[in-house]
């Protein structure tokens, strides 16, 4: 507890010390478990000790039974063990939890230390922690557990990260740059593999390096392992430097798509290393294999993605398990692809990207949030674990350090990356419309970080087939450390130094969305006029096909008809509503825009002059302020009302209908507010609309002329006369009260019906038939029922009316 307190104390040095202590305690704790684990796994006495009394008793029992075989069965009774220790029983899950806990605490710790995370990337710190943990385990004289085991890595740690990346892949920039990305991922990786592998072999042949036993194929294999850019490392580093979207998607996309190349090259060289030679047929087979691996992976992913989307169509009654489908189908896609040695990473990416638009339309908002948080949580824990494990594995592994081999590897990797990027950009730029500048090329080349995938692939190598496996692993680890530490740490200052365009943090505005859509259609139109079927044309075709057939099959209900713009608008509105709820409500206006500008500022004011004359009683400043205050307090109340309803919707209503309902309500609140403001300006609004108050208000808001027509026609309706001659007379205030009361009674008309009927008969009668909420419809005849259904509850209602009922 004291440590906790110290963590938040402002004295930097002391808290740092305390934090160090905390870290140490943590390490010792972990150390202890590993120790016991080691002890427990060694097959001598300790195991017996650990398993405790149970075994002993049984042995005893048997012994007794054996010795008295022919005699009577005598049962020697022992004291019932009140407390026994059975660590073995929980060992594996317990250790897993400990590792996860360590990872999470480390992540937590780094962000508590100020400025540290801005200098050193998290990935570096985590590797250092891993090194420390590994070192401590070794110091204790224990066997370091093989934490970064290939199975563990590929089946448990990697999928969450890739799914997170695939599910939240920014499709638009990805597709716009797909050519460049593929070029870097396929050609670039091939080039790197052969350049590094080939030259490495040449270096090995030089006399005096003691490497002459290394053959060409293992060298190429090593090249293919080391040449792939690692998505985990790239994500970890690029997330912190906030580079612009284009560069991010180029490097990140490359790291995702090069998986297929790596997988094929790896299997190809591993296969032929045994055979010893490669024929042209093998090369052709390799190319075919590449196509199958990549396209097959995508196909598997897409199939599972569509299945997931289709399943989510029917989950409207069991919302709780919705998120699970996303995870399970994706994981199945990954495993299925891995089963055939297809590219699991590509399958996951395809699965996530395919399912997302449909799943998002189907599942509830809460499920969507769950999916988002779970993915982020899993991927960040996985990432942390991977880096820690990298450190531990470094300490653990047997190393064979060969200066020549290691340094040549590091240099060659850098050189080949630079040559590859520059050469490929030269070709790509001929086809690109937005050219890659020299700065961009530099960042792409420099951002080619290597990571744990390479290590795990190296770890997979067979010791007997590849006697130089340890040397390879050492070189791989060195290369990983070099890229993550040197490049990862310097890339941020370099980005600043070169003034590379950064990511714009602005959130997407509705205007941008409108213009994105507008531009899309415009460009499609221009292409059509030119008679040139370019990619806008095909994109438009695909979109329409998607809308017409696929969405209909995969999205439940009516939502498939919803155009993108409307979906965007709803999403935005919803987000703001939630923000409003979370901020405690009442601070911001519940309008769709977080602004100090209200609807009336942009409404064209087309008041007929006669009305204007009639309508504007001259208030003194003070009077106006007073009225404003009254109105404002009323509005505050209505906002609170809105919030309480929100809470209800979010917590209790598991169905999306609640959200529609909520939207409707919000709309009404906005309109109500609009009217209130208008009233404070003009005070011209006559009472008693002919139809529902909401309708009338809406009409009023959009077209004042129409409003006056209504007024003229509705003679039978009681109206309130404004005493123009004496604007400050009680009458005018009365009128205001009437209005506000109406606004208030609109919401709680059921409850107040009886009470107000005496006061102003016609008006209230009129209103009672308005039926503001759908829920209250049909409840008109039964005020009691209506009271039950009207959401804010009676106490709220009374409060609300207070300012208006003296």
């Amino acid at each position: 507890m004291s440590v906790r307190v110290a963590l938040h104390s402002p004295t930097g040095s002391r808290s740092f010390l305390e934090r160090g202590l905390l870290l140490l305690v943590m390490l010792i704790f972990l150390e202890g478990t590993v120790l016991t684990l080691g002890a427990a796994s060694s097959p001598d006495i300790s195991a017996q000790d650990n398993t405790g009394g149970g075994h002993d008793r049984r042995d005893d029992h048997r012994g007794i039974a054996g010795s008295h075989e022919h005699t009577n069965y005598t049962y020697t009774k022992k004291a019932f063990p009140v407390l026994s220790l059975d660590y073995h029983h929980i060992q594996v899950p317990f250790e897993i939890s400990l590792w996860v806990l360590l990872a999470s605490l480390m992540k937590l710790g780094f962000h508590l230390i100020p400025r540290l995370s801005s200098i050193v990337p998290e990935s570096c710190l985590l590797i250092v922690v891993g090194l420390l943990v590994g070192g401590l385990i070794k110091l204790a004289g224990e066997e370091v557990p093989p934490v970064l085991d290939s199975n563990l890595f590929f089946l448990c740690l990697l999928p969450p990260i890739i799914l997170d990346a695939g599910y939240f892949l920014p499709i638009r920039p990805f597709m716009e740059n797909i050519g460049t990305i593929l070029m870097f991922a396929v050609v670039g990786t091939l080039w790197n593999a052969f350049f590094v592998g080939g030259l490495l072999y040449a270096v090995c042949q030089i006399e005096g390096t003691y490497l002459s036993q290394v053959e060409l194929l293992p060298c190429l294999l090593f090249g293919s392992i080391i040449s792939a850019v690692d998505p985990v490392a790239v994500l970890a580093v690029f997330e912190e430097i906030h580079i612009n979207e284009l560069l991010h998607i180029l490097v990140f996309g490359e790291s995702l798509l090069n998986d297929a190349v790596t997988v094929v090259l790896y299997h190809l060289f591993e296969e032929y290393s045994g055979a010893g030679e490669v024929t042209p047929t093998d090369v052709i087979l390799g190319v075919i294999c590449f196509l199958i691996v990549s396209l097959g992976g995508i196909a598997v992913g897409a199939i599972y993605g569509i299945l997931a989307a289709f399943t989510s169509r029917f989950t409207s009654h069991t919302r709780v398990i919705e998120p699970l489908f996303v995870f399970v189908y994706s994981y199945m896609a990954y495993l299925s692809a891995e089963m055939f040695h297809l590219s699991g990473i590509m399958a996951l990416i395809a699965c996530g990207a395919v399912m997302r638009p449909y799943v998002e339309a189907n599942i509830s908002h809460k499920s969507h949030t769950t999916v988002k948080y779970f993915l982020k949580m899993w991927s960040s824990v996985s990432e942390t674990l991977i880096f820690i494990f990298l450190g531990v594995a470094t300490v653990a592994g047997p190393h064979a350090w060969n200066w020549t081999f290691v340094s040549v590897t590091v240099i060659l990797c850098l050189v080949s990356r630079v040559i590859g990027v520059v050469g490929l950009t030269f070709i790509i730029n001929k086809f690109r419309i937005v050219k890659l500048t020299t700065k961009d090329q530099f960042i792409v080349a420099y951002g080619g970080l290597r990571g744990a995938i390479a290590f795990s692939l190296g770890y997979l190598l067979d010791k007997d087939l590849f006697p130089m496996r340890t040397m390879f692993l050492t070189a791989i680890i060195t290369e990983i450390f070099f890229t993550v530490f040197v490049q990862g740490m310097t890339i941020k200052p370099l980005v600043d130094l070169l003034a590379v365009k950064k990511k714009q943090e602005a959130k997407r505005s509705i205007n941008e969305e409108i213009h994105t859509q507008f531009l899309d259609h415009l460009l499609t139109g221009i292409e059509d006029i030119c008679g040139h079927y370019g990619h806008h044309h095909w994109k438009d075709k695909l979109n329409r096909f998607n809308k017409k057939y696929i969405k209909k099959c995969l999205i439940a209900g009516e939502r498939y008809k919803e155009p993108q713009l409307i979906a965007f608008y709803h999403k935005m509105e919803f987000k703001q509503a939630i923000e409003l709820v979370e901020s405690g409500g009442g601070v911001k206006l519940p309008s769709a825009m977080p602004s100090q500008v209200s609807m009336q500022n942009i409404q064209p004011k087309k008041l007929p002059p006669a009305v204007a004359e009639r309508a504007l009683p001259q208030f003194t400043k003070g009077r106006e302020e007073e009225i404003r205050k009254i109105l404002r307090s009323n509005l505050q109340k209505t906002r609170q009302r809105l919030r309480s309803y929100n809470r209800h919707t979010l917590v209790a209503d598991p169905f999306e209908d609640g959200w529609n309902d909520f939207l409707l309500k919000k709309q009404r609140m906005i309109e109500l507010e609009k009217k209130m403001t208008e009233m404070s300006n003009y005070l011209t609004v006559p009472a008693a609309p002919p139809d529902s108050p909401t309708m009338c208000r809406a009409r009023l808001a959009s077209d004042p002329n129409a409003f006056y027509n209504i007024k003229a026609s509705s003679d039978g309706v009681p109206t309130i006369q404004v005493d123009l001659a004496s604007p400050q007379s009680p009458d005018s205030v009365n009128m205001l009260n009437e209005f506000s009361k109406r606004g208030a009674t609109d919401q709680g008309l059921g409850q107040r019906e009886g009470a107000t009927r005496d006061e102003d008969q016609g008006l209230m009668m009129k209103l009672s038939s308005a039926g503001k909420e759908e829920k209250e419809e049909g409840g008109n005849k039964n005020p009691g029922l209506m009271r039950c259904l009207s959401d804010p509850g009676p106490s709220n209602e009374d409060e609300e009316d207070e300012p208006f009922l003296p």
Partner: protein
Amino acid sequence: MGASQSAGTEHEFQDLADRTGFSLEQIGNINKRFRQLSNNEETLSREDLASIPALDNNPIRAQIINAFFDKRNLHQNETGTVQEIGFEEFLMVMTHFRPAAMGLTEEERENLRREKLRFLFNMHDTDSDGTINLEEYRRVVEELLSKAGTIGQETAKAIADAAMLEVASTTRGKMEPDEFYEGITFENFLQILNTFDIETRMHVRFLHMDTATLRCGKSK
């Protein structure tokens, strides 16, 4: 006679190429399309464009067609619309969809950006008064959602209102209740689309400047 005519057009094309920056080949292609659309007439009318079948599904078809006949887009400092356009005018409209060339200076880039945004702005500002008012903006959104049926029409207004509110709040900041925001001026328009990389987005590949270099690259 045919020879002299072709020589004439060639000279004309060269002239156009100098003024618009298109290559001769591009101008030839566009001219071919122009003749096809206008049924070999010298001028193109609204009906010719409206009869393009591929445009049928475009929700903003009317606005696109209008843009071709808007005098503001034809580099003439006047407003209003024309009934028919010749090839030169057609080409002038097309210049707005040319991608940015390599190695532009900051200033050139900004000019290009303004020019492209001006084109969009003009499409929205139907009454040529220099501002997009709420009515006009609503119409834009309505057009955009015109293929979405009734849901679209109902929501369009709300979306346009929200968008307008956003413009007003980003460009004006706080407004008093009795102030009135008369509409989006071009300056406001530039401001709200500040993060919108129009110079890299508003282009048609067909009108790529570098077709010539592209061929060089291939032949190498």
